């Protein structure tokens, strides 16, 4: 009996950690794709860029892990501002197909650039000692790094929830997306709001890429390899459902982990079938129906 409880705790813990890293990677996409309606398939590029900045800051300049993560978030956030001003801005009114083509092209460019500058191998990341131990968290002994991921993911979710729902900036984003002209006429600087929320999306991607670099190693194929998982989280949560992204990511992580434990050979297929079934029943995901 104890054995079974121990197994379930362990599956839920590892599933939650896996889900959290997916959440951190996907929540930024939920902002750009979900709120701003830009089909930015190149979201993983920003996660990878954040990861590269972090590992470079650590290995080349000897920065501590957390400072290096912060550097990744800031640098990529600024990169997001620059790209929004120069490129993405033109796409807001473009048809979806053009947005898809543009962002896929960006993925290819990023993969080639990453290979050119950093080589084809995964980047080493030296976690600080306090993250590479194992922690007793009362319900079992688990790797400190994954406990940390769960903690940070939870805090980010809380902060984003409060920012979108409870601040003036959050209200401006929602207003600007729902009715751009009305938002402008009540004095919201829509262009600035869009730049900032795009930067927020890319910075969140960088946070996910940097923090998760030990679990999902940073290498040139990164933006392609995890894209499916990010899209699953955003699609099942429903466009614009930022809080839902957390629940969906966690549910996906825990379900995927459990299925793979019990049915290792068919787990991959099963989880995708499950996602398909959910999307058949709820083609628009679990987004609240209040939106246009």
């Amino acid at each position: 009996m104890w054995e079974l409880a121990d197994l379930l705790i362990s599956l839920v813990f590892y599933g939650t950690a896996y889900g959290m890293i997916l959440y951190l990677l996907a929540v930024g996409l939920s902002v750009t794709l979900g709120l701003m309606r830009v089909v930015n398939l190149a979201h993983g590029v920003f996660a990878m860029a954040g990861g590269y900045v972090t590992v470079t800051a650590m290995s080349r300049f000897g920065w501590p892990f957390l400072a290096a993560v912060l550097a990744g978030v800031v640098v990529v956030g600024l990169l997001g501002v620059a790209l929004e001003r120069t490129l993405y801005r033109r796409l807001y009114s473009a048809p979806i197909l053009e947005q898809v083509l543009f962002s896929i092209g960006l993925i290819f460019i990023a993969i080639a650039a990453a290979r050119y500058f950093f080589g084809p191998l995964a980047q080493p990341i030296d976690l600080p000692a306090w993250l590479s131990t194992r922690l007793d968290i009362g319900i079992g002994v688990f790797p400190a790094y994954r406990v940390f991921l769960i903690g940070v993911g939870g805090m980010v979710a809380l902060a984003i929830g409060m920012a979108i729902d409870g601040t003036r900036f959050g209200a401006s984003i929602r207003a600007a997306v729902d009715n751009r002209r009305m938002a402008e006429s009540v004095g919201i600087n829509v262009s600035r709001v869009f730049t900032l929320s795009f930067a927020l999306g890319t910075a969140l991607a960088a946070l996910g890429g940097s923090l998760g670099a030990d679990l999902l190693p940073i290498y040139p194929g990164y933006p392609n390899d995890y894209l499916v998982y990010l899209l699953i989280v955003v699609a099942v949560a429903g466009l614009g459902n930022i809080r839902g992204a957390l629940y969906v990511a966690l549910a996906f992580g825990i379900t995927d982990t459990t299925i793979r434990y019990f049915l290792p050979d068919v787990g991959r297929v099963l989880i995708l079938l499950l996602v398909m079934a959910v999307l058949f029943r709820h083609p628009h995901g679990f987004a609240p129906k209040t939106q246009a």
Partner: protein
Amino acid sequence: MGTMLVRLLVLSALVSAACGTAPADTKTIKVGIILTYSGPDASIGEAIDRGAELYRTLHPNDLPAGVELQLVKRDETGPTPDVAKRLARELIVREGVQLLTGGQWTPNVSAIAPLATEAGIPYVVMSSGTASTTRLSPFIVRVAFTTWQHSYHLGKWTASNGMTRASTIVSDYAAGVDAEEAFVRGFTEAGGTIVSAIRAPLRTADYVPFLERIRRDKPQALFNFNPGGPEATRVIKAYGDLGLAEAGVRLVGPNAVVPDDELKNMGDAAIGVISASHYSAAGDRPANRTFVAEWKKAYGPDSLPNYFAVGGWDGMAAIFAAIRAQGGIIDPLRTRDFLTHWSNPDSPRGPMRIDPETRDVIQNIYIRRVEKVDGELRNVEFETIPSVKDPWKELHPEGTGGGR
């Protein structure tokens, strides 16, 4: 005066162009090399190419006087047999190459093999570890390794060294299934018992659920095979996170589980992992010390040759030897016969030779352990199984339904 000078210059340029840039008796031997130079698997192609190029750069005077080797490179972009076949045809028909080499992927080699047979062009395979590859064409000579050389002998070694209960987890594709079969065969022959066997999909992001299951099965050894690269790092991370080493589960596998150049990404979780390989960058042989030193000089102090790179190096060594032995005028059949009897007592990997019967490589297999030496992780060889023939071919003689 000025125009006169210009005219003279133009004239002399025309004359030298007409005479050709080299002495009239220069003979060019064209070798076609098909590898994956772009896409997600370019790192392997790059390693092979670098190994081959390094051999060429370091042996400028090893070809007969007046003979020049021209490498015609083509990018097959990945495991795409149709592309590889088209490129091989183009190399043979349009470029008129006298030798083919490369051979990164088994499916691509399978597509090229019939062309080599048809055109009667020797094909030196530098990678592709599937055991049956050399049976695809009588013109294939392999200088690489076979999955069975590694995993079958690792299975025997594991069971004979006190680990008699093992689980296996392999990536679910042809090479992984091949490796699983090889390990299980060697392991059970030496008296071991398999506790559980898992086939994980390629590009599994988190290996924890699989390894959690294995932790509960409590084997003494866990055999893994994956295609290397980030996949290898993800396996090691999960192995470390779950504390499997402390729980008494030793990770074992062929070289792809702990590639020399990936070790530094893996961190201390890799320490103690046992693997079988024909090559380690840490191999303590004079030829290998020179090889690694020259590699670092050419490609940067942080880079390391891996087991793919040594395939490129030895493939080029074999091609050079074949050209030299025939004085620069090469004939396909004589080249093939020379290559099937080729041996290199002093490769970076140790002594190696080609088995004339199977045209496959015979070489030492080293059992290695990941250790921290001078602050960096290395695959330290601690046991040598000398002159290993491909076990699969010995267990499946030709004509007994063993060909696949």
